[in-house]
């Protein structure tokens, strides 16, 4: 450790934001302290993740551009990095059109509910050591409860627009989100089972140790790896991202449930969607990738929040890569995939996680759990693929 600054400097760098907040809070009268502390944390979360959203929009467009052999935005500012600013000004100054037939109040509140719900999810995410807004006893449950409110806002948007594309998009989105929520929660339950807690802070603490140089992350166990993959697939579907972007498939139903939104409300939907995606990735990091802990034991001197955001950016890059690579699924494929493939795998993964806990020998449990996870994947995949007839599809409604 002589190579780096002394231990206390590392500690200060790690806890910098926590100490700064404490310093500010110490200057307010005693009764308002708790409130001020919460407000500061909430504002910080809002600012950081909203700017991450701005950054991601330009990263995504540039990344997709590279994948599709073009440049992407490169006009506003150096290398086009000021593009989000231009987009923001454009959406703010656009006319806010509400359809005449629309249900005004519901139409107005839908994007607000979406954004509020999406931001509330960050309350339980530990983005660094001692950096969590609310360390709730049932934090994971809170996260899923709030994320289910997003479905309501999508329905409100789709129904209140009184547009057939909006309604179709909303029903597709809700059906998809309900189907994939089952897998999402079951994959999270494996970790809850292993950590013995619903509190996100405790779950991260359980993964904080190291064996040699490797961390005790849950993703580095057979059941944890399977759980992580299942979780991220389900999270992609929850966020309506490609290849599960049927609810807003531009070529079929325009923009889905937010077809009839314009100007700033349209931007709010975009914001809510990306914020929801970051939150889901954040929960994936918390549950499987050790939250803010360092990936190798000799890297613990890097401040914890940097690790969280490094992992988050890595997952965002994966999302962009997947979006640029995979084609959109069909509705029946989407549902079959969720109910016939992901759900059984998640249940088997739950059994594997239970076995992992109770098998005594390290080698035995590695072999048993790996065989269970890989075997079920192979057998289920083969079994489902057996019935496939790769031929020209006949459409019943167009006979």
């Amino acid at each position, binding site marked *: 450790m002589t190579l780096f600054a002394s231990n206390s400097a590392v500690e200060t760098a790690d806890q910098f934001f926590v100490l700064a907040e404490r310093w500010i809070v110490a200057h307010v009268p005693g009764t308002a302290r708790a409130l001020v502390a919460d407000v500061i944390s909430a504002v910080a979360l809002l600012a950081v993740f909203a700017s991450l959203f701005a950054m991601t929009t330009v990263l995504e467009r540039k990344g997709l551009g590279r994948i599709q052999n073009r440049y992407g935005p490169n006009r506003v500012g150096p290398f086009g990095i000021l593009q989000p600013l231009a987009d923001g000004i454009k959406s703010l100054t656009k006319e806010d059109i509400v359809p005449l037939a629309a*249900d005004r109040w*519901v139409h107005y509140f839908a994007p607000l509910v979406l954004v509020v719900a999406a931001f509330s999810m960050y309350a339980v995410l530990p983005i660094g050591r001692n950096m969590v807004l609310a360390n*709730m*006893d*049932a934090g994971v*449950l*809170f996260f*899923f*409860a*709030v994320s*289910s*409110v997003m*479905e*309501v806002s999508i*329905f*409100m948007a789709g*129904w209140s627009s*009184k547009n057939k594309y909006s*309604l179709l998009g909303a*029903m597709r989105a*809700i059906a998809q989100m*309900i189907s994939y*929520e089952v897998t999402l929660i079951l994959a999270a339950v494996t970790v809850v089972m292993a950590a*013995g*807690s*619903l*509190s996100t802070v405790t779950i991260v603490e359980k993964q904080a140790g190291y064996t040699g140089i490797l961390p005790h992350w849950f993703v580095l166990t057979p059941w944890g790896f399977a759980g992580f993959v299942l979780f991220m697939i389900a999270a992609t579907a929850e966020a309506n991202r490609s290849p599960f972007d049927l609810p807003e498939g531009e070529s079929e139903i325009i923009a889905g449930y937010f077809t009839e939104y314009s100007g700033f409300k349209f931007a709010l939907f975009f914001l809510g969607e990306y914020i929801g995606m970051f939150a889901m990735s954040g929960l994936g990091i918390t549950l499987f990738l050790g939250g803010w802990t360092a990936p190798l034991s000799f890297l613990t001197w890097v401040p914890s929040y940097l690790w969280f955001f490094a992992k988050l950016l890595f997952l965002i890059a994966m999302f962009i890569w997947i979006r640029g690579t995979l084609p959109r699924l069909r509705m029946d494929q989407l549902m079959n995939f969720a109910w016939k493939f992901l759900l059984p795998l998640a249940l088997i993964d739950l059994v594997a996680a239970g076995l992992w806990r109770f098998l005594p020998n390290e080698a035995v449990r590695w072999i048993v759990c790996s065989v269970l996870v890989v075997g079920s994947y192979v057998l289920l995949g083969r079994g489902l693929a057996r019935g496939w007839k790769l031929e020209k599809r006949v459409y019943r409604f167009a006979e």
Partner: protein
Amino acid sequence: MLFTIFAIVTVAGATAVICLRNLVHSVLALIVTFAGLAVVYLLLGAQFVGFAQVLVYIGAVAILIVFAILLTRNTGADVRVSIDDSWVWSGVVVAGVFAVLAWAIYHSSVSHSATLAQPATTTQQIGNALMQQYALPLEVIGLLLTAALIGAVTIALREQKEAR
């Protein structure tokens, strides 16, 4: 103080549910009611039940009702609420039920007992209770949910096959 506010929200939501003429508006008011109740649970110190309330009632039951509304072609058209004889009888029944409940609440000895400090219940205790003391009810609930799932699917699916 907080309790009063959210109690008012809950009651207002519930009143809106049965008074609004548009079915979808009713469901949105129902969601407000469920959310208000969840906050009341949180204020009473039942964190786990409060979040479960949001997850199950708003995330599942309300969404199911929305699907049912759209599948029965009630897409937004206002339902006519006609006042007839049944309103009088219903009013009498409801007033009677409420009078009995209120009388019982005011005259029972429990409502005048001293208020205890908030019990410190952790989610871990709930989990332990579910796995030990309440293991059998939990299994039965699992069985019930499976039966309900299969039942709901068969009830809703049968007609479709005949129609094809």
